[in-house]
C-alpha cells in the first residue's frame, strides 16, 4: 500500500468536544424518532382520544426560543471578545430555560387537575412521556450551562471562547428544534 505518511487532519476540522456533542445529538434524535414513531403507530388504535394542548405551551415555546436567542447573543459576544455580552447572553438563556422547565411542569399540573390523568388514555401518557423526555434533555443542557456559567464567572478564559459557548448554544438550538417538531406533532394530531 502507499508508503508515505498521510497528513494528519482532524475530522472535518472539528474538535473533540464538537464531535462528542454532535454524535450525542444524533443519538438523541434517534431516541425522539422512536418515540414519535411509537406515537404515530399507537394513535391509529381506536381507544385514542387526543389531549387538549394547554395554551401555556405556547408561552413555554417562546421562552425556549428566547433562551436560544440568549445563547446566540452570548456566542456573538464571545466572537467579539466582549466578555460582558457573553455573560449577559448566558444569563438570559439560563433564566428562560428555567422558566421553560417550570412552565412545562405547570402545564402537567393543569392537565392533571382537569382530569387528563397519565394512565387514563394513551394520548395522555404519550403527552406526559414526550414532554418529560424532552424536559429531561433540556435539564441535561441546563447542567452543562451551569458548569460553563460557573467557570465563566470564576474567570476561566477557556470558557469564554466562541467554541465553548457556541457548542453549548448548538445543543440549546437543537433542543429548540426538537421541541418544535414534537410540539408541532402534538398540536396537529
Amino acid at each position, binding site marked *: *500500500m502507499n*508508503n*508515505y*505518511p*498521510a497528513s*494528519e487532519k*482532524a*475530522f472535518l476540522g*472539528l*474538535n*473533540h468536544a464538537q*464531535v*462528542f456533542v454532535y*454524535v*450525542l445529538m*444524533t*443519538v*438523541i434524535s*434517534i*431516541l425522539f*424518532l*422512536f*418515540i414519535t414513531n*411509537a406515537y404515530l*403507530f*399507537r394513535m391509529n*388504535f*381506536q*381507544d*385514542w382520544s387526543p389531549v387538549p394542548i394547554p395554551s401555556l405551551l405556547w408561552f413555554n415555546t417562546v421562552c425556549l426560543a428566547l433562551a436560544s436567542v440568549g445563547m446566540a447573543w452570548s456566542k456573538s459576544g464571545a466572537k467579539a471578545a466582549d466578555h460582558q455580552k457573553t455573560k449577559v447572553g448566558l444569563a438570559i438563556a439560563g433564566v428562560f430555560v428555567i422558566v421553560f422547565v417550570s412552565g412545562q411542569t405547570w402545564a402537567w399540573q393543569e392537565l392533571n387537575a382537569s382530569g387528563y390523568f*397519565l*394512565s387514563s388514555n*394513551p394520548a395522555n*401518557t404519550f403527552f406526559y*412521556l414526550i414532554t418529560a*423526555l424532552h424536559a429531561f434533555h433540556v435539564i441535561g443542557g441546563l447542567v452543562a450551562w451551569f458548569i460553563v456559567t460557573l467557570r465563566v464567572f470564576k474567570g476561566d478564559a477557556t470558557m469564554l471562547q466562541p467554541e465553548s459557548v457556541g457548542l453549548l448554544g448548538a445543543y440549546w438550538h437543537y433542543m429548540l428544534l426538537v421541541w418544535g417538531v414534537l410540539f408541532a406533532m402534538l398540536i396537529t394530531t
Partner: protein
Amino acid sequence: MDQNSATYEGQKMYDPKGWWDTYVFSQDHKVIALQYVCVALAIGLTGMFLSLLMRMQLGFPGLFESIDAGSYYQDVTMHGMIMVIYLLTALFLGGFGNYLIPLMLGCRDMAFPFVNMLSFWMYFLSVIILVASFFVESGPTGAGWTLYPPQSILEGTPGGDGAGIILMLASLAVFIIAFTMGGLNYITTVLQSRAKGMTLMRMPLIIWCIFLATFLGLLAFPALLVGAIMLIFDRVLETSFFMPEIFKGGEVLDYGGGSPVLFQHLFWFFGHPEVYIIALPAFGIISELISVHARKNIFGYNMMVWALIAIAGIAFIVWAHHMYVAGMNPYLGFFFATTTLIIAVPTAIKVYNWVLTLWNANIKMTVPMLYCLAFLVTFLNGGLTGLFLGNVAVDVPLSDTYFVVGHFHMVMAVSPVLALYGGLYHWYPSVTGRMLNDTLGKIHFWITFIGTYLIYFPMHYIGFLGVPRRYYSNEQYDFIPQSVADLNQFITVCALIVGAAQFILLYNFVVSLYKGAIAPKNPWGACTLEWQTLESPPGHGNWGEQLPVVYRWPYEYGLPGATSDFVPQNVPDEQIT
C-alpha cells in the same frame, strides 16, 4: 521520564495520584479495559452457571427439586440477557475497544478519559442492579430475554410478582447510558485522535469493526431505551402502550387498546443490530489474528471495510425477520426476507477473504490461530443455518424450535466466544507482559471447540422434528420420542464438561500472571501499533515522549524485498532492511 506530570502535544495527561486513582477510579484506558473484562467475565460465569442449571433440568428432569418451572424460566431469561448484553457487548466494546483503540491508533488515551471512567462505573452499577434482582422477593424476571409484553409486566409470570422486571429494565437503562458514554468516546477517539499517518483506510480492521459496532449500538440502543421506558410505564403506572384487553385470573384487567407487536418492533430494531454489535468485534479479532498468525497480509482490505459498512447499514433494515410468525402484517415478510438474505452477501465476502488470506500463507498453529480457524468453522455453520431462518417461509416450521436455539448459539455464542478466547490469548502478553501456558491453552481449546459443537449441532435436528424451545419438559408430548430425552442427557454431560473446562482458562490467566514465561516485546511478530510501544506492557500514556508515526497499512506481512517477514506500521520505507 517522569510520566505522571507530563503534558504531551498540548494535551494535559490525566495524572493518577495514589492507589485508588491508579487502579480503581482510573482514567487510563488500559485499566478501564481490564475492569470491563473482569466484571464481564464474572457476570458471564454467572450466566454460564445459569445455563448449566437449565441443562440439568433438560437432561435429568426432576433430579433437582429446586429447579421448578418458574425458576427454570427465570434462569433462561437471565442467561440470555447476561450473555448478550452484560458479557459479550461489554467485553467486546468495553474491554477490547478500550484497550485497543488508543494503542492501535497511536494515541495516549481516549478523547475523554473522565467520561470513559464514568462509563465503566455506570456499567458496574447496571451489573449490580441486575444481580440485585436475584435477591428481591420472587427473584429476577422470567419473561424471556426478549421481555415481550404482556407477559413481562403481568403478575403471575415467573418472577413477575416482585421487582424483578423493574430492576431488569432499570439495569438496561443504566447500561444504555454507560454504553452511550463509552460509545461517544470511541467514535470521537477514532475520528480525532489517530496518529500521524494513520488514515482511516490504514486502521486495523478490528478498529473499523469496533467503530462500526459502536455506531450500531448508539443508533440501536435508543429503541430499547424507549421500549424499556414504556414498559416501566405500563408496569408501574398501568398505562397501555403495549397492553391490550387482557383476561387473566378470571377477570378483565385494567388495561386496554395497546399493541404487544409495537414492543416487538422496538425490541428487534435494537435486537438485530445487537447481533452485529457482538459479531463485528468478533470479525475484527479474527481479521487481526488470522493475518498475524498466518504471516500473511489480510486479503482484500478495501473490500473488507466496505463489506463491514454494508453489513452495518443493512443491519438496520432486517429486524422483522425475528417476527415472521409474530402476527405482524405478513406482507412485510417479503421485504425483510429479501434484505436479510442480501446481508448474507457481504458476510460471505468476509468469510471468503479470511479463508483466502490462508492461501499461500505461512501458517503458525498457535493457540490464537486454533481459535481463529475454529471460529471460521462454527461461524460458517451458524451463518449458513441463518439462511434458513431468514428466508421467511423456511422459517415457518423452524421458528421457535430447537433449530433456532442451535443456530443462534452457534453464530452468536460459540463463534464470538471462540473469537474472544483467541483475542484473550493473543493480547494477554501485551496486557501482562507474560505468555499464557500453551498446553493448557490447547486443552481448553479442544474441549471448548469439540464440546460446543456436540452441544449445538444436534439441536438443529430435533428442531426439524419440531421440538419447541423454552420447554421446561417434553414428557407430555407423544410426537417427541424418548431419543430426544437421551440426546438431552448427552448434551447436558457435554455442557458440564465444557463448563468445567472454562476454569482451565481462568486458572491459566491467574497462574500465568505470576509464573508465565516473560513475553518478548512483540511475541507474535505483529505489524499493528499496540506491539510497538516503548515499554511492554505499555505504560501510562502509552508512547513515552514521542507519538508514533504511521507509514503503511497494518498487514505488511511477507513484503517482497524485506528480510523480515513483517514490517510494523511505524517503520518508514528507508528503514526496511
